[in-house]
């Protein structure tokens, strides 16, 4: 790396130095280079409320026009290339601030196989810690940089040395060992029979047995609404076709589990139905076992298109060849230099340490070198095809004013998009691998980082999976409080998406209004948990602590303030004739296409499918509150957008009801089932947290839970061996990951400029999709 201080030196040289320094100080334009989830807080820092423009920092233009990069958190190996490119493209003098803990030494993802350290790639001026950072912190970083430019060379914090009384005779303390317990030869079984009270299941089982006669090896009811069918690799395709004929029209998840000591892979597909109402909550898992050597299995993409991207992903993770999927042998999520087959058990990531012994170098560094090869390949046959048919290729992102952390390569003919090839994975932080190396309770903050603009729902989805496995209930008060928080989080996520939607139309005012509304909800979440967008407040069995009545009062009042600002947003953006003209009839996803691509959440409902996990399989207090599911028929951008606005109103309704109800319910907020002997923690877990949760072990088997997060159904599959206190395998299917397929389908045939309308209308949040 060249002299890291070169840019400051340049400013200080020559007779014009005072002018150069002064102008650089007040004109730090950050470039549009959003690298990870801290981008949400970046948006807040430059929206109303914090207004970074006060300092002269204006988010305008791309690399060539800016002189400042704010690296938002994690730099994955794929993004590292882009970072190097962007930094190279910027004119001197230029400055770099890194925000977020994961930009420093990896933060919560420190031992991930797919991240690098920004400081290895570009010279960094300031690190701003926090996960996620606050906008105040970000702006303070900008101020610190301004001071540095003016020649005030100091750290932002002045440490003072004090003399502390030191006791000589301390007893020697042992370095704590890792509390993790791994079973040496775990027994992995995904179809463990359970006696449940589920009449329709018995019926369905009989029906399935009749249909699939001779095609399956075993059929088990593994829980309410869960059936597991074991079959052979050869019969897999036929079983899938039969299931499809029975109206199991999409796949919710594809999963591969490696069992090294038995030298086998378990490949499972979770089929579900959007067409038949009583089948909606049911998940039918068909699974098969294949040998670990040269694993090959027929791809079910021809039957279920929604399995397509998941198969590509698992091919990269495990090396299982899905015969028939056209992306085999190529990279999809991972970078070219990411280690191969990272999710296999043989691939070990560094262990966490709880204390450092003397003389031992901390193993902080990511064990993998930063990327050297900068080439980002576009597939050759793709280019040839385009040149043959008089089209141009336009790659968008990840450094583009309107791309987010996603790269899409278009083939454009005239103004029409012929084909769009997505390249996700720029924020792939390898959560599934990390989760296998953490205690169950440690995974709560990890999975919350899926979508920090929808944190409570992500938190809830994981916790529900654990609760489901442990079979514990939640006290009524906690149920209502959890519902309140989840709905607040939903509103928050929808407003984030609406803000991005209006920004993609060039309407900055709409964006600012949305951020202002979000600011209020964040305030409520802050009052509850103390954190802006990473509360980690929901724990198995209830909540971390009780929410006082004053805060509930505040939330109640906030719903009224919300309504007023909502109307302002509607009058300036939603009813704007230009918005309607841009969004109406664009990016249409028909009901058939939506089902085929396995869309989830509001985007599925906008296409006319009445599917909402909150209604079909109610959890928490959703069966006790009154709300309606919004569906639309158009399936276009406007429909998707207005549908979510309508859902916000329903969410506000739920929040009001839940807050009203919870005032009348007193009692504990943590279930006795989980507390065991620590009854004193019933209203506040503080002080007993590790004792209660530290050694959770889930019963043997597979535990799949679906939860309705803001952007759709979130699926968590936990596989436990019944002995270890860490999960054997966690499979996360986040809503955006499922929506990616439909998103690409909706883009095809539209005009080039419509890509942003479609993008905004899907609320695609790359960190959530990439996991």
């Amino acid at each position, binding site marked *: 790396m060249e002299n890291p201080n070169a840019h400051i030196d340049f400013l200080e040289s020559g007779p*014009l130095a005072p*002018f*150069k320094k*002064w*102008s*650089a*100080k*007040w*004109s730090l334009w950050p470039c*549009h280079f959003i690298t990870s989830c801290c981008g949400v807080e970046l948006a807040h820092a430059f*929206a*109303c*409320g914090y*207004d970074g*423009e*006060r*300092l*002269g920092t*204006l988010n*305008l*233009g*791309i690399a*060539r*026009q800016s*002189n400042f990069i704010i690296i938002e958190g994690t730099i994955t190996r794929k993004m590292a290339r882009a970072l190097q490119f962007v930094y190279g493209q*910027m*004119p*001197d*003098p230029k400055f770099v601030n890194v925000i977020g803990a994961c930009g420093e030494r990896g933060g919560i993802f420190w031992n991930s196989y797919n991240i690098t350290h920004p400081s290895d790639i570009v010279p960094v001026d300031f690190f701003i810690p926090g996960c996620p950072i606050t906008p105040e912190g970000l702006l303070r970083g900008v101020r610190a940089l301004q001071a540095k430019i003016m020649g005030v060379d100091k750290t932002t914090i002045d440490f003072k040395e004090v003399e502390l009384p030191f006791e000589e005779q301390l007893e020697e303390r042992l370095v704590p060992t890792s509390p993790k317990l791994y079973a040496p030869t775990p027994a992995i079984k995904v179809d463990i029979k359970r006696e449940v009270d589920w009449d329709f299941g018995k019926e369905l089982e009989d029906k399935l047995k009749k249909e699939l006669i001779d095609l399956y090896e075993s059929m088990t009811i593994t829980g309410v609404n869960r059936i597991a069918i074991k079959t052979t690799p050869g019969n897999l395709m036929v079983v899938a076709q039969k299931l499809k004929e029975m109206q199991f029209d999409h796949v919710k998840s594809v999963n591969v589990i490696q069992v090294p000591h038995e030298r086998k892979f378990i490949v499972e597909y979770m089929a579900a139905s959007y067409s038949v109402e009583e089948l909606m909550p049911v998940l039918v898992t068909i699974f098969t076992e294949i040998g670990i050597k040269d694993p090959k299995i027929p791809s079910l993409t021809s039957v279920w298109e929604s399995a397509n991207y998941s198969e590509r992903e698992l091919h990269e993770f495990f090396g299982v060849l899905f015969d028939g999927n056209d992306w085999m042998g190529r990279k999809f999520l991972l970078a070219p230099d990411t280690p191969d087959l990272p999710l296999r058990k043989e691939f070990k990531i560094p262990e966490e340490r709880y204390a450092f012994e003397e003389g031992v170098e901390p193993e902080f560094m990511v064990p993998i070198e930063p990327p050297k090869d900068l080439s980002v390949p576009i597939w050759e046959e793709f280019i040839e095809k385009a040149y043959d048919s008089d089209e*141009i*290729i*336009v790659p968008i992102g990840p450094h*583009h*004013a*309107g791309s987010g952390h996603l790269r899409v390569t278009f083939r454009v003919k005239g*103004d029409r998009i012929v084909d769009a090839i997505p390249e996700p994975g720029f924020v792939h932080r390898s959560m599934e691998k990390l989760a296998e190396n953490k205690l169950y309770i440690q995974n709560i903050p990890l999975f919350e980082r899926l979508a920090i603009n929808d944190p409570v729902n992500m938190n809830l989805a994981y916790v529900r999976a654990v609760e489901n496995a442990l079979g514990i209930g939640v006290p009524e008060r906690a149920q209502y409080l959890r519902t309140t928080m989840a709905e607040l989080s939903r509103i928050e996520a929808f407003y984030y998406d609406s803000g991005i939607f209006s*920004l*993609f*139309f*060039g*309407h*900055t*005012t*709409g964006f*600012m*209004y949305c951020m*202002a509304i979000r600011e209020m909800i964040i305030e409520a979440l802050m009052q509850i948990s103390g954190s802006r967008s990473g509360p980690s407040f929901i724990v198995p069995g209830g909540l971390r602590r009780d929410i006082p009545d004053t805060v509930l009062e505040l939330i109640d009042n906030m719903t009224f303030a919300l309504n007023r600002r909502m109307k302002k947003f509607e009058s*300036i*953006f939603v009813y*704007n004739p*230009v*918005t309607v*003209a*841009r969004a109406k009839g664009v990016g249409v996803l028909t009901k058939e296409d939506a089902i085929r691509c396995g869309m989830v959440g509001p985007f599925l409902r906008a296409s006319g499918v009445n599917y909402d996990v909150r209604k079909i399989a109610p959890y928490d207090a959703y069966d006790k509150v009154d709300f309606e599911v919004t569906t639309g028929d158009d399936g276009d951008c406007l429909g998707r957008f207005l549908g979510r606005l309508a859902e916000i109103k329903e969410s506000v309704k739920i929040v009001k009801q839940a807050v009203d109800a919870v005032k009348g319910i007193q009692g504990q907020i943590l279930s006795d089932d989980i507390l065991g002997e620590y009854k004193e923690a019933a209203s506040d877990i503080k002080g007993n947290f590790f004792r209660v949760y530290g050694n959770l072990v889930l019963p043997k088997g597979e535990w799949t839970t679906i939860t309705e997060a803001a952007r759709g159904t979130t699926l968590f599959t936990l596989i436990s061996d019944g002995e270890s206190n860490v999960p054997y395998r966690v499979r996360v299917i986040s809503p955006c990951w499922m929506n990616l397929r439909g998103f690409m389908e909706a883009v095809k045939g539209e*005009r*080039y*400029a*419509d*890509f*942003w309308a479609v993008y905004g209308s899907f609320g695609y949040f790359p960190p959530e999709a990439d996991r």
Partner: protein
Amino acid sequence: MIDVSGLVSTILNNQVNIPLLYVIYEFLLKIPVIGSIVTFLLSIIPLFDVPIIRLLIGFLLWKPMWVLLIIPGFATLGTMLLILPWLERKLVGRMQWRVGPREIAPRTRGSIQLLADSLRFLCQEVIIHKDAHRLYFLQFPFLYFLPVLLPLLFINAGAVGRPLVPIETPYALQIMVGLISLMPVFIMGVGWSSNNRFAFIGTVREAFMYFAYEIPFIIVILAMIVLFKTSNTVGVVNAQGTYWGIVLNPLAALVFFIAAVMATARLPFEIPEADQELSFGPFIEYSGIAFGLAYVMAYEKMYVLSAIMTMLFLGGGSGPVIPYLGDLSYGIWFVIKTLIILLVMVNLRGVYPRYRLDQALNVGWGAILIFAIVALLWSVVLGVVL
């Protein structure tokens, strides 16, 4: 041989009439030291029987020169370029519940923000990438000033009977339209020489937009020429003695305004530069001072178009006469009117999202064209028949 003394008398006989200057002059004479300095300066008479200081000031106050240099010429344009982006950021910021630039100079609400930005651009590296056409890439942003600055020669900032115009010609409006039509050619050159995908798309969009607004634009200018029965800018202002152009032909004013918004690529027609789609389209590869020039290009164009609109529709510099200011008061009214149009234009950013290219073309070739033709017919009815 040039008749120098004749030229001198031409200059001195055609002076801007600002009574305030005489008041200042007499006041200066009364101050002890400065008064004697002024008297001394006035005593230096090398030739032509005129003090040299009088000759210098006289040259600046020579009407065509004063109009070109001060109002509405370069000085006003420069000031506008410095404060307009700041005003835009402040106003849009206020619409968005924000403050906008402030900390740089808190007392004056950050009014020198653009100074810092332009200084920074000036001191930054100018990158010419490998694929660019080096010569054109560098020269187009500078050449662009020609079609922008030349129309200033024909703008009449005066009122009825008191013209303030550098060059008076019967073909002034036609020449201005010709020059304005040249502007997109330079933007296309910029995009072409950048040799970048997004620049290419942006350039094509610019070309599409060019035709969509240019034809209605020319038709409304024609409508105003028919209405005023002259294309001389002095005659145009004189014809608005009783009623302003906007009252006589409001439709033409509307079309002119929309065409101006399209021509300057402001929202909702910010299509060639679409930040989120093309990241500044034609200007994507520009950095440093070259981008700084590209950044103010749009504002220059806006100023010229607003000035023409003030002249054609808002009666030029007509307005209540401010005592002691003489000709300057017309100039002030002219600038105020222009500024109002400019502020309306920049405020659109806070209100409208961006149209798609085909929708904007529909607007240009559909509604706006029809309105322009109706405006022309109305002008014919009003100006010729009645």
